[in-house]
Every structure is written in structure tokens, then in C-alpha cells.
């Protein structure tokens, strides 16, 4: 049974329905006992990083999540859920030196897109609109010209250039670049997905990414269990 964690951050129905559509058993879980009973866990979420951590703690879900991670069962963070797996985030932090702590499962920082990240356009104005809202292409190698096949089993079967749907103003920067499973370009490359042993995550919304996204969710549901 795939558990889709409900901690009060956003719409979980579409993630659950996507797994059901693919023929996998899935249900929304919200308490410690049902999280512990899942064979694999999805940590979704939209919204603010600090709110997300506060809600996880208010509901006593931090330890149950960390236990699932430690048990080797497959975990998938989506969007804000990906970011919460990191060490810390600069979102709403008093300063970059005092970031908001996350779950600390994957070492690294969550950082903000800035409109000037890609430099100025030909009209002299910043190129980027923040948040990024829309489709973008994935790469699995060093850059967009590197047509490597995916290394992570989460991305198995996808071609370089496959498009997925992003809605985010912040992105993860893992300390270990080797965990990066896919990148995309938004004023420069950023980590669009990572796989670190049994812990996987995507910044985009697979449940909103049509056939490509469903393939990723199906891959997750078929990963070897613990």
C-alpha cells in the first residue's frame, strides 16, 4: 500500500488518484500508525516551507517519516515534499546564515529563484518570472546537450527532453551532486529530481505531468521494496 501523506498542505487527491488510475493501491494517510503501516510513502505538498515543517511536527509526523526512511522503504517527495527532505531552506529565513531547518534526510539547502538568475534579456530586463509555473524539459546528463539516459530507476524509460509540469519558487541544491536524478533549465540548470538510495523526489508535479508523470509514479510504485 502506497501512503500519500496528508499534513494539511495542499491537494492530495490527484496524487492518490494517479496511483489508483495506474492500478496501484494507494490511500491518503495522516497519522503515525498509518504512516508506519505503509509499504512506501509519498510526501506531497504545496505552500510555505516553514508551515510545512510546523504542520508535520504539530501532527507528530516527523519521527514516523524518518522511520520509514531508515527502514529502506521507498519514499517520494513531491514539490514542497522534496524540499522538506533537505537540511534547510532559505524561504522566509531571517537571513541566509540562519535557514529554516528541514527533515535533514538529504544534505543540502533549498534556495530561491531570483528574477535575475538567468541574467537580463535582450531588452535589459530580468528574464525569469518567479515562481516558475509551467512545463519544462528534463535532462539526465551534465547539461541539455548531454543525451544520457536516466540513471535513476525513478526516471526509467524517459527520454531526455521529456516535459514535466513545475510550480515552484524555490529549488533544492543537494550537497552531493551525484544524487541528482534529473535537471531542468530555468535561468541555469537546477535539480529537478533526486534519488538517494531509497529516498526519491521531484520538484515538478508528476500527478500533473500527463503520460510522463504517470510513468514516473508507476516507476516509483514498482521500485524494489524493503
Amino acid at each position, binding site marked *: 500500500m502506497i501512503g500519500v501523506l496528508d499534513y494539511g498542505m*495542499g*491537494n492530495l*487527491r*490527484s496524487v492518490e*488518484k*494517479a496511483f489508483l*488510475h495506474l492500478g496501484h493501491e494507494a490511500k491518503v494517510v495522516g497519522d503515525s500508525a498509518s504512516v508506519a503501516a505503509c509499504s512506501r510513502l509519498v510526501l506531497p505538498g*504545496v*505552500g*510555505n516551507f516553514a508551515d510545512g515543517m510546523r504542520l508535520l511536527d504539530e501532527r507528530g509526523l516527523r519521527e514516523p517519516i524518518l522511520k520509514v526512511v531508515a527502514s529502506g522503504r521507498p519514499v517520494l517527495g513531491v514539490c514542497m515534499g522534496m524540499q522538506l527532505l533537505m537540511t534547510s531552506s532559505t524561504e522566509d529565513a531571517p537571513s541566509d546564515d540562519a535557514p529554516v531547518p528541514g527533515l535533514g534526510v538529504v544534505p543540502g539547502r533549498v534556495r530561491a529563484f531570483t*528574477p535575475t538568475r538567468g541574467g537580463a534579456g535582450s531588452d535589459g530586463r*530580468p*528574464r*525569469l*518570472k*518567479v*515562481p516558475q*509555473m*509551467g*512545463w*519544462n*524539459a528534463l535532462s539526465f546528463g551534465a547539461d541539455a546537450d548531454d543525451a544520457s539516459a536516466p540513471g535513476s530507476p525513478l526516471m526509467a*524509460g*524517459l*527520454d*531526455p*527532453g*521529456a*516535459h514535466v*509540469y513545475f*510550480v*515552484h*519558487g524555490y529549488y533544492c541544491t543537494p550537497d552531493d551532486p551525484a544524487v541528482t536524478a534529473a535537471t531542468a533549465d*530555468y535561468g541555469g540548470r537546477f535539480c529537478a529530481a533526486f534519488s538517494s538510495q531509497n529516498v526519491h523526489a521531484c520538484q515538478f*508535479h508528476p*500527478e*500533473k*505531468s*500527463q*503520460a*510522463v*508523470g*504517470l*510513468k514516473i509514479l508507476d516507476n516509483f510504485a514498482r521500485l524494489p521494496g524493503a
Partner: protein
Amino acid sequence: MVKGVNFVELRDAGDPVEIARGYDAAGADELVFLDITASSDNRDITYDMVRRVAEQCFMPFTVGGGIRTVDDVTRLVQAGAEKVSINTAAVLNPDIVNQTAKRFGRCATVVNIDPKRVPYDDFVARTGREPEWVGSARPDGESSTANPGRFVLEVHTHGGRTPTGIEALPYAREVVERGAGEIILTSMDADGTKVGYDLEATGLVADAVDVPVVASGGCGSPEHMIDVLQQTRADAVLAASIFHYGTYSIAQTKQALAAAGLAVRPAPGAQGVIGT
């Protein structure tokens, strides 16, 4: 930056769920359902429709029309709408934009702006204010006999019938300030004409704000999409009738945009979707 090709649902155009499935399969980048409640007093029908679309279409979709309160927004999000588009309510009670953004985030908060050009004298007489922007002509080239070439871009509601006394540019900045994460800009001068998007109004609004702007109204061909995407900072184009009546397919449209050098997501079956 990838440009979106969005599809807007037409009122009374058949079962929205079936239509949504068709456009999902055809590779539309996003579905936008507007004014679906306007034709029905039974709002439960809307929530049920949204729920069924969300269960079957794994793609972004926006629902708007008839939203009056944050409770309406909450019910739409709970039914599975990823984004809600607020139009008249944002004019009458702008705080609904702040409340929606606070509860569901900027990314879920879309504001529809329907500007229409009105003669300068008429605007000043009604509002007693000097407008921020005065334009030279309507997209159809027609000028005012009273004041040749003097127009104000005024926000309208009720499909362009009701003027609000509010100018489009300061209004666009205000709703973004209040929390709108996206603007759907439907020019009431261009809407229904099929002679092309309102390049002037779209350009002005897209330059005034730093959130994505979706151009809407007036599309008669993929060339019109290319024009507005190349000549303005619009991020996506929305069209209904050219797809609905089968004048152009989504795949055809995307090929035309790609051939013009615009970054678009290929339609299914094209290269780069899923490996075998």
C-alpha cells in the same frame, strides 16, 4: 522558457469531462474552465465536474467563473482544481485575492482581467480621474469620432458589458501585489474577432507585472499565437474555438509554434515524450 498552449472550455459545449479527456490525450498544456457555473444555478454540478476531471485528467487545470467568496475557492480546490481564476469578485472585493493567496498560495491564485478600450472623455467624465495610460487605436483600427485616437484600457465585468472605472494596468499591478500568481488577460476588444490577440493590451500588462500572463481572446490561427508570444512578454496563449471546432489540432498548433522557434512541449507521439 516553455510557452504554454492552453485550452478554454466553452459554455454548453458538451460533457466537460469528455472534452477534458480529449484535450488531455491531444496534449494541451493546461485546461482552463471558465464561466461553467454561469450557465447553471446548481453549483454542486460544478464541484462534481471538477472532481471527475481531477480523477481522470492528470494535467494542470484552472477553474473560474462564479467565484464570489473564499469558501467557493475552497470548495473548488477541495474538488481538485489546481488553480482558481477570480474575475468579478476580485473587482468587487479585492481582498479575496489576498485571502486566496494566503490560504492556497500564489501559484493557485489566478486573476482574470477583461480590459476593453473606452473613449478617454467618457472615462474621465465617469470617474473624474486622469488615466495612467491613453492609447491611440483599438485593435480593429476604429477610432472614436469624439476623440480620435484617445482610448483608455478599462477593466470590465460581465463579458465586457459592465465598466468598472478601473484601469487595466494599475489593476494588474494591484492584484499581483495582493497575491495573484498568474493573470489571464482577455481583451474584450479582441475576444470573438478571430483576427488575433490584442498585442497592445497584452504587451502593456505583461510588461507591468512579473508573474506569468496568459494571452486570451481573438485567436484565429497558430500565427496569432506566434505573434503574441514573440511580440510581447506573454508566457502562454489560450484559445478555445480554433481547437473546439477542429480548425486546428493541438499538435498542428504546437508544430507551427516550434517551427517559429518558440519553446513548446511537443504533443504526444512527437519526439521526447516517452521512450519505448
